[in-house]
């Protein structure tokens, strides 16, 4: 299988996915907004929601398909921001702020550092396009039917968005009562991170 063919197959496959999604969107989602054939403009909240969801998917696609790893990081930023916006739509204010603070303020910086630490980052052989096509198709064939089935069969209840209530106090209560053990185990995970960072960095320094 030569390179242009596999590339062509990949793009055809992506186009098929987009077409499937558009078909689903037009036949299943849009009719709810068009009762009795009369065009009713969708509410602003719905438009903002779809914009955020589209930005998230676009960012994730950027991570997967960008050939430049720094652009992949920027795509990750957009995907994480979109996820934070989706948390806001679910009235999960604490989760949204934690997402901003930890993932965008911390993890993304860490990933950028990891990119810059890597030697010869400009000439990395991007091998996941030709190598991973067969395996990727297999994984897709295994996972996609299940996800599609769930998406189509589950009767997703449509509820109006609830009133904004601060969730932080309830999270604090739950942390220190129901979820006490996971809460304390989280600190052990963080401790393992600290120890692992020092051990790995020391090895790296010795190797230089």
């Amino acid at each position, binding site marked *: 299988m030569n390179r242009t063919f596999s590339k062509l197959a990949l793009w055809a496959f992506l186009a098929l996915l987009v077409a499937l999604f558009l078909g689903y969107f037009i036949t299943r989602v849009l009719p709810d907004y068009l009762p009795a054939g009369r065009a009713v403009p969708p509410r602003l909240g719905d438009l903002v929601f779809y914009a955020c969801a589209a930005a998230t998917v676009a960012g994730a696609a950027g991570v997967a398909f960008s050939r430049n790893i720094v652009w992949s990081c920027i795509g990750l930023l957009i995907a994480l921001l979109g996820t934070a916006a989706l948390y806001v739509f679910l009235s999960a204010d604490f989760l949204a702020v934690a997402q901003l603070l930890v993932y965008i303020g911390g993890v993304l910086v860490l990933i950028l*550092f990891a990119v810059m630490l890597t*030697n010869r980052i400009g000439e990395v052989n991007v091998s996941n396009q030709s190598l991973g096509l067969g395996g990727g198709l297999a994984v897709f064939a295994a996972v996609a039917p299940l996800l599609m089935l769930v998406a189509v069969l589950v009767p997703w209840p449509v509820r109006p968005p609830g009133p*904004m209530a601060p969730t932080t106090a309830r999270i604090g209560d739950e942390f220190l009562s129901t979820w006490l053990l996971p*809460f304390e185990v989280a600190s052990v995970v963080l401790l393992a991170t*600290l*120890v692992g960072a*020092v051990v790995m960095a020391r090895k790296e*320094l010795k190797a230089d």
Partner: protein
Amino acid sequence: MTPLESYFPLAVVFALALVLGLALVGLAALLGPRRPSRVKEAPFECGSDPVGDARGRFGVKFYVIALLFVVFDIEAVFIYPWAVQVRELGWNGFATMAVFAATLVAGLAYVWKKGALDWE
């Protein structure tokens, strides 16, 4: 108030930041004169002739510092819900939080002892 209403100011700030960033870069690209020369296109290195690759490797120390930051960032996120409820949770909650923090202080002591905080 729906989420859309209560987060509207935040959305305005985000939109403003996006528009401002795009406008500044776009206007500079649109209006600025462009007369490239070999000297101008060379990577800037404090005015002297560039040595080596512009994308040099960073020291691993930066990574350790960034990782330490993320760990204590997450600790701050975990402390926040407790701090909101500190009076209701009382000494029981304080003891729980103390165990949580002590675990991380032990980690900090270890990292400090190993010299990961020294910049040399």
